């Protein structure tokens, strides 16, 4: 059996409690101290470090708000790849694989796990150590690949998914957008906030329901 690998992320980068004001100014109110040990389900530690760095270039923390590292986007991607999505359990994978127009979508043979495993080395063994501008060059060089397109899409998913999937830590992505989470009713608000922001405090699906919800990747093996 493969030895389980861990990655250490600093707690104050991962979903530090953040308040996003209506004026669009992010304010980090408090932050946890120390390191968090995150068990990896699919990535090796080295792969995870590359993904953390790449996601951060795709969705960087800057003066407009937090980025992919703080949201834990890599953790989201790792779990998706380990689950049924990663192994193409729900994709039509019979040959022949014939290239076609973009409207036919991805027609390749490789599943998302294979795409990541083959894609990460394309960024170079030294990717993590490079400065941001050099990392961007490397990413730009693979911008048209299926791997990059998946990585970009998954980074956004990891920013704004329900935290049960491993991303959007501390609801940091939803706070940034002012998205309240999957609230059960806006009946009282419908038609009352026309052109005026309605921004209740975000809650996760589990918080709203009052019990934990198991995501697909935790329920079904890949």
């Amino acid at each position: 059996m493969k030895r389980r690998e861990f990655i250490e992320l600093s707690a104050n980068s991962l979903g530090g409690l953040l308040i996003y004001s209506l004026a669009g100014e992010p304010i980090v109110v408090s932050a946890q101290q120390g390191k968090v040990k995150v068990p990896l389900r699919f990535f090796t530690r080295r792969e995870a470090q590359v993904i953390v760095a790449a996601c951060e270039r795709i969705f960087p923390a800057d003066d407009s708000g937090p980025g992919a590292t703080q949201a834990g986007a890599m953790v989201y991607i790792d779990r998706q790849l380990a689950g049924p999505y990663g192994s193409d359990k729900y994709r039509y994978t019979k040959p022949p694989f014939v290239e076609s127009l973009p409207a036919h979508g991805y027609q390749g043979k490789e599943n998302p796990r294979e795409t990541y495993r083959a894609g990460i080395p394309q960024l170079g063994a030294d990717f993590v150590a490079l400065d941001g501008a050099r990392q961007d060059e490397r990413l730009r060089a693979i911008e048209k690949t299926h791997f990059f397109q998946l990585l970009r899409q998954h980074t956004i998913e990891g920013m704004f998914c329900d935290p049960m999937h491993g991303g959007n830590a501390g609801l940091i992505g939803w706070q940034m957008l002012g998205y309240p989470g999957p609230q059960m009713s806006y009946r009282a608000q419908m038609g009352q906030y026309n052109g005026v922001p309605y921004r209740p405090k975000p809650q996760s699906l589990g918080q709203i329901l009052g019990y934990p919800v198991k995501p697909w990747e935790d329920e079904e093996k890949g």
Partner: protein
Amino acid sequence: MKTLAPVDVVIVGGGWGGMVMAKEIASRTPLSVLVLERGGPFRGVGSYGKEMDEVDTYIRKRWAENPANETFTTRATREDHANPLRQYGELPWVGTGMGGSGDHWGATSPRLMPEALRLASHLRERWGASRLPPDIAIQDLGVTWEEIEPYYTRAEEMMGTSGKAGNLKGRKIEGGNIFEGPRSREYPNPPHAMPYAPLLFAKAAKELGYHPFPMPSSTLSQSYVNPDGIGRVGCQYCGHCSGFGCMVGAKASPNFTLLPLLESRKNFTARTHCQVRRIVHRDGKAVGVTYVDDSGRELMQPAETVVLAAWVFNNARLLMLSGIGEQYDPLTGKGTLGRNATYSVHVGLDFFLDKPQNDFMGSGGLAMGIGEFGGDLGDEGAARGAFQGGLIFAYQQGDPPVITAFGKIPKGEVQQNWGSQWKKAALKWNDRYGTFLNTGNHFAYRQNYLDLDPTYTDKWGDPLLRVTMEWTDAERKQAAFMLEKQVGIAKAMGALAIDPHPSAATGGPPLQVDQHSHGGVIMGASRETSVVNTYLQHWRMPNLWVVGGSALPQGNEHLTLTVVALAYRAADAFVERYVKQPGPLA
């Protein structure tokens, strides 16, 4: 293969078509009715609360049909290799499980225009055949407005459609769609309260001289008890609507409005995880179906009558696999099975505003629309080669709530779709855009058809269905015309930027297959040009009925209500005529 105990009526598919037939037959006759559904059982509204997750439900489509089991192949022309639609994204959503696609639809519920029922005759009378596009294969449905109107009313009352009549027995009423066909009754429920963008749309449309109206939606605007005694509560505008099951039961679904009436009946059974592979027939008569159950066993289910009500194109596929009817050949024009495959000409745009929309609240059918271009495009359209359009509307569905909604930026504002600049632009415009849509007329053409794919097979080794379809000049002209009208309204709304969606006017061939696909087993008044009669009974096999969007000889917008109305009409004919005297009804 084990042969099971026979039933009177076996119904393939637990969606709107199959469940309307099941409910009418099981509650009005003593016949035993069995529904075979390929997907799982109704999971209950409690489960739908847990499914309000964009990743699992909306993006990965956990509750939709698994493309690894079966999918479709598509190509533009007969010369092309057809590629399978391998994953969700290109395959927008294919319903499975009890309720079928009726469980996660948006519930937009307009009626067809009266002339759409006799489109071929209407267009020839108005413009002359020579002005119409070459290779056109449109047909009349074979039912009149007077025949179908009571069934539209019945469908609306069962679902509790919320809206405002614009034509009540010929009397035009401002505030409703004054261009609609005459209705015998007002909508069973009043329109929904509208959010910001649809209200802006309506205001701008009115200033331009149009007649805006609330789009009819089969999600309840208030608590409602339908004529069958089924009570449901009003919409909560939770924004997890189209693409999701409704966690309060406000959105009409076969699971809410039909299944509860059947579950206690002794003559009704539903078996789930049953993949029907063939309709078995002997001497011109259907004798039952074979299916694979959850454990992989193949079983023979004998039945006196077979009702085929699978997902749109799967009706044609099952008939092809079963060797029932003559495959359509686009070269000779012979054969009726697989002809008149259509899609919809989707035309839409994103408009950007400086005010927040709160677009996480909404409902699948929550929209304001205009009917000026809902049918005939008049002299103005015909002069440009655009003959039929569709309703134009601005909606606020709520979904996709956050991930899929992120990153809408006016074209040209950023050069790269990642990185800090992109992120800032995406945050700036997040929740500051809305959408217009027109899911309009799509003519049938001789060259657009369905057959079995020679290369790709499903999980059980049967050929996939192959869709051959391309846009013609007529669709490009129609799309350009409809877009021009939409842009006019968006400008009048004060949009800061307007980005048209890719459409027939700008994009490639229609290689997608989705809930706006139609045809393949079309209805009509003649057995030479249709597969089923206007009661949806097979012309050559009277104990086989084929219900659903497969019956529609050309594409149009949001046809669920029409599919349900036609299913009610078929059920009436079955119960009132066929049961007493089995045989051809036309």
